[in-house]
């Protein structure tokens, strides 16, 4: 445990070593958020309600998604593909720690930093923009949304790892990762709530793991899901998590057999 805590500490220090880079990273995320915020603000201007959302509800969704997104999708697992390709994975295989534990520790550090700064940025933006925010008051709902958040986080962790493990069999992981990023942009609910999609497309999105990354935790928080829909969501999410975990284990053991440390 002490080893993994040190990895978390080291990863945080890595981020804060190059302060200007770190600031640029945060500025980039704030600009991304502002673009989506003003896009929705422009679309909803002059309308009481659109797609079943008032302006306040939509802007709450957009602002809070800027918190949920880095928490769930902030990851260092994309480095694993490069480690495999370059042969540097060997350095980690000989160390007295589990590689999965190492990746998870790096991710926890990334998410910790993201959450701290995302909360501060949202507070600053709230003071500047003054949107009508919806604040959840039910403790049960808050607890359930936290559980959904953690489920999304674990799901994304395994999903991202699986993409990186393609490095065992292909020299370039960039294109599959890029494709997954494009699908994720559309199907996670980062840009818009998924229930504005047509019914068939919404049904498709519910069966994909992306649904549980951002959209599901936010909908739970907003209290816009019935008990049945919530239960269904949690069950499907758990099935996806278990499935991706199993796939990750299989891919890891097969990948190690194929691994030749070619870069070294």
């Amino acid at each position, binding site marked *: 445990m002490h080893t993994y805590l040190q990895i978390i500490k080291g990863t945080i220090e890595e981020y804060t070593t190059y302060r200007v880079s770190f600031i640029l990273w945060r500025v980039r995320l704030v600009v991304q958020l502002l673009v989506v915020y003003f896009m929705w603000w422009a679309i909803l201007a002059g309308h009481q309600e659109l797609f079943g959302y008032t302006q306040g509800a939509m802007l709450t969704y957009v602002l809070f998604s800027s918190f949920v997104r880095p928490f769930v999708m902030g990851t260092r697992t994309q480095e694993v593909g490069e480690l495999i390709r370059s042969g540097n994975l060997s350095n980690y295989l000989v160390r007295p720690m589990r590689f999965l534990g190492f990746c998870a520790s790096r991710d926890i550090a990334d998410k910790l930093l993201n959450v701290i700064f995302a909360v501060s940025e949202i507070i600053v933006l709230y003071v500047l923009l003054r949107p009508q925010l919806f604040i959840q008051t039910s403790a049960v709902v808050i607890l359930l949304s936290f559980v959904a958040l953690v489920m999304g986080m674990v799901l994304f962790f395994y999903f991202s790892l699986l993409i990186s493990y393609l490095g065992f069999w292909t020299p370039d992981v960039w*294109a599959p990762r890029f494709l997954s990023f494009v699908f994720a942009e559309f199907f996670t609910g980062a840009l818009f709530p998924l229930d504005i999609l047509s019914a068939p497309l919404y049904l498709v999105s519910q069966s994909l793991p992306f649904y549980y990354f951002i959209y599901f935790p936010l909908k739970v928080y907003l209290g816009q899901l019935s008990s049945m829909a919530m239960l269904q969501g949690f069950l499907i999410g758990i099935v996806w998590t278990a499935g991706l975990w199993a796939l990750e284990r299989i891919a890891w053991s097969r990948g190690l057999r194929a691994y030749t440390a070619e870069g070294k």
Partner: protein
Amino acid sequence: MKKSILLYRRLLIANWNALIEYRGDFITQIISSLVFSLNHIIIVLLLTSKVPSVYGWSRGELILLASTYNVFIGIFHTFISRNLDQIADDIYFGKLDYVLLKPIDSQLATVIWKINYISLIRVLFGLTLTVYLMGTLHIIITVPMIVVYFFVIITGVYMLYSFWLPFITLMIFNPRLSNIVIFLFNITNVARYPKEMYARLPLYIFVPLLPLALILTTPTKVLLQKFTFELGFLFFAVCIVLGLFARFIWKLSLRHYTSASS
């Protein structure tokens, strides 16, 4: 002149050979490019499905803006962005010397080495969609319109290059800005939306983003026959100022450049 053309021809062939070396990778990149081209169009279609207009732009006009974005960004990524990414790497690793020692203008040398053919797919997709949309919007395409459109697009590409270059040269002063290119890719996304959307921002945010707000809005307005003298004047004035500024910053930065061996 003949030598330069022959040299550039060799670069074109070398880049093509590098692209098709890994066939599987080549195919995946084509698919990624197509998917990315479609992504923004689909999002615009979705978001405007129940809204007749956004900031004075009708649904058709917004999709035309999105298709122009594909043309614009395709050209930018084909000829410019990978070279600037490479320059950022060269500055970080102290390898810019090899570029500076070449017998050509150093700023020109920043943009000629790499050609990303895959991004031409976005250009083709964007042009096809643009022609289709012009038909649905009942706008007649004329030769002067096409000439002005491409002239404005190329000027916009130069404007975006001039916007990116000063940021890249910051690495000469602080080589640890390793994520500056990713930052610029994200900031460039601002250009996807109409200029009018940003007019409500505070001046200190709107003014730095003005070049990005103009680079797509202007060529789209050429197609929509809404190109005014004022817009044209603003567009070319910003382009000239940005171009001169980028040149000045590049020359100033080179005086402070210290390579890895110095």
